[in-house]
């Protein structure tokens, strides 16, 4: 029996050679157990070692290997070729980011935004380690567990039309992480963090399209988190207007 094959149409971008991206079609052997990343690795190992992309864990947790597959942002390690009906399969770098080379995009903008939401526990006073952990019930953990599952894969930014239009927007993952820390009973950094996100290009810019939550491979639901953040920020604003002198 002849070996089955599949065609991949991969967007290439080689800034040292040309300013223009182009598409290259590769025809490679196909097996039912192959994911898109396996196909890219087959190309790199056996057809074209110049094809450039990021990957590491190939189990959907390191967040390196995002790309647009048939126009939808996905982890390439999590999409089976057998589930892709149309050929050739088009693979492009994640949208809304500057492309560095082939499928590799520049995510420095997210790294800056992550820093802005202060994604760490802030406390007025630290409890000495010798006195043990901060007690938390499982229910308290569950208040932020979902948002703590973000793998920073950037699929949500790639899917977000607001970010695509204006990259000053704080965006889904960074907002979700802000929410994650605000909801953590160990944290006391609420005011500083809300001040950082409730700005013109912060959460208010979100128009609740919800695509971020649709494409999220870890069900983090950034769109839901942003709505919650808006409510928290509005409450804080109301309180500050109504009770200027009272404790907030």
């Amino acid at each position, binding site marked *: 029996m002849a070996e089955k094959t599949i065609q991949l149409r991969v967007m290439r971008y080689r800034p040292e050679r040309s300013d223009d991206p182009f598409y290259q079609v590769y025809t490679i052997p196909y097996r039912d157990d192959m994911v898109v990343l396996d196909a890219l690795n087959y190309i790199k190992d056996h057809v074209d070692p110049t094809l450039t992309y990021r990957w590491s864990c190939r189990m*959907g947790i390191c967040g390196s290997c995002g790309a647009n597959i048939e126009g939808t942002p996905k982890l390439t390690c999590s999409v089976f070729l057998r589930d892709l009906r149309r050929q050739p399969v088009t693979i492009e770098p994640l949208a809304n980011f500057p492309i560095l080379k082939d499928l590799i995009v520049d995510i420095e903008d997210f790294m800056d935004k992550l820093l802005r939401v202060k994604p760490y526990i802030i406390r007025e006073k630290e409890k000495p380690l010798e006195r043990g952990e901060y007690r938390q019930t499982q229910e308290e953990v569950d208040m932020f567990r979902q948002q703590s599952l973000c793998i920073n894969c950037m699929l949500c930014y790639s899917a977000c039309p607001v970010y695509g239009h204006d990259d000053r927007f704080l965006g889904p993952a960074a907002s979700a992480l802000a929410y994650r820390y605000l909801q953590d009973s160990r944290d006391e950094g609420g005011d500083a963090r809300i001040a950082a996100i409730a700005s013109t290009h912060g959460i208010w810019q979100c128009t609740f399209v919800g695509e971020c939550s649709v494409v999220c491979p870890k069900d983090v639901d950034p769109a839901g988190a942003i709505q919650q953040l808006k409510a928290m920020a509005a409450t804080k604003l109301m309180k500050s207007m109504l009770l200027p002198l009272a404790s907030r």
Partner: protein
Amino acid sequence: MDRLAYDIVIVGGGAAGLRAAIAAAEAHKSLRIVVVSKVYPMRSHTVSAEGGTAAVLRDYDSYDMHAFDTVKGSDFLADQDAVEFFVRRAPLEVIQMDHWGCPWSREPDGRVAVRAFGGMSVKRTVFAADKVGFHMLHTLFQTTLKYESIERLDEWFVTSLFTEGGKIVGVAALDLRSGTIQAIGAKAVILCTGGAGRIYEFTTNGWIKTGDGMALAYRAGVPLKDMEFQQFHPTCLPGTGILITEAARGEGGYLVNKDGERFLKRYVPEKMELGPRDILSRAIMTEIKEGRGIEGPYGPQVHLDLRHLGEDVIERKLPMVRELVREYVGLDPIKEPIPVRPGQHYIMGGIHTDLHGFTGLPGLYAAGEAACVSINGANRLGSNSLSECLVFGAEAGRSAAEYARSLPSTTILNPVTALAKADESRIFDGLLKREGGESLAAVRSEMQHTMEIHFGIYRSAAGLEKGLSGIRAARKRFERVGVRDKDPFFNTELTSTLELDFMLELAEVVAMAALNRKESRGAHSRTDFPKRDDANFLYHSMAIRTGEGPRLESRAVTITKWQPAARVY
């Protein structure tokens, strides 16, 4: 070439590297610290650790119990002073992670929860569902963002370590985004680059686990210790090598053969599924060899059965197991058993260090899987490695900080710039321009296949000899590997070539050390020497680089309280 200078350069941004960075930053505010990593830190392979991190936190537990479990698990090759140091420090490190926001799973009273783990005599493995490495890595990474003195060079690949006058003076690194070699002056360097599972064909390790730091230290003259000891995890998904956590057994899962029999009763009747990894992996291989394996699309396997745990326990405590098995096998572990087989998972050996992460070369430190202190000896217990990253990462960070502070501010830049120029020429004029007939992927496959066949769970002189010549042949072929992507900018073919160069060097060390150890101990099982031989081999293997390959020396094992005894479970 830019000239960068720091007090402390940390190579690798996984749990050990990030913990080291924070410890150094807290030791002295004035220190300039940089984490140099070939990937963004949150991509580091710590992210894939699943089951938990061990620490004595309960009244029913004690330091001596944790230490003895670890020493017995190590088949008495661990240094007992290191193990005692480790178990005493692990609890506060786990609490520290809580204070930094790690979403630990909880007991009803709000304390961090503990679960059972292989080779641990009581429940002492702290967890955050079954995404422990992921949560620890992101917690540590996000916490580093608090510290202004911690800088990062993301997607920089360190190519060489530099010494002058017997001291570390810096590193050279390939900045992927500019496609240039940069000189980085440093008073101290901490290597936290993880293991080298990618020297094998079938491994749970990610693509980035290529042993870079081990090879860098070895080339700088530091011995590699106990490299023959490779851990094969009993439960990996056939085909992909994806890890199914030991927590699945800690929570009560069964291993069964084709007759549906819990076969471990013939091997570790007292511990059953909670036996140590080396023994369980051998038991699976024996079942398969004796015809009780289950034929699968990737060869014989056994089953990990979680069905009796029920949906609630699986969803709450093992959500990632369910996610991975559904996605990559197309089965739901609530309804069907999971096909598994052993695969390379961890290297007990690594860069020789003392209790403080010091390698013996002034200014050079190491921690985490890259290092060998040694607390793991011939077989690591599951959930000790994340704690090891915390305890010894922090210790290496503090030691490096103290050392860096003790040095005067000097013009360490000049030698580094000149040395990095030489590296630039080696890589850009040598490797990148090389037009060889050999394919990088073919040579890598040959190395991985050779390691898989000859340096696996069972070993023998004939196979090891054959394997060693195979590795040497692959090294010869490597000299003719050409790089086809000639653009310096973000050249992952070039970094893969550098990685293969590192891995081939390490594979040779593993091979020589395995040949030299004519006994069976822990994860090193020689069919021609089936017994442990304390009279002749109760020592660490120390591999020192020479022009003709590794020279092997031995180093005594430190015994404090526990004399070597038969290892029965």
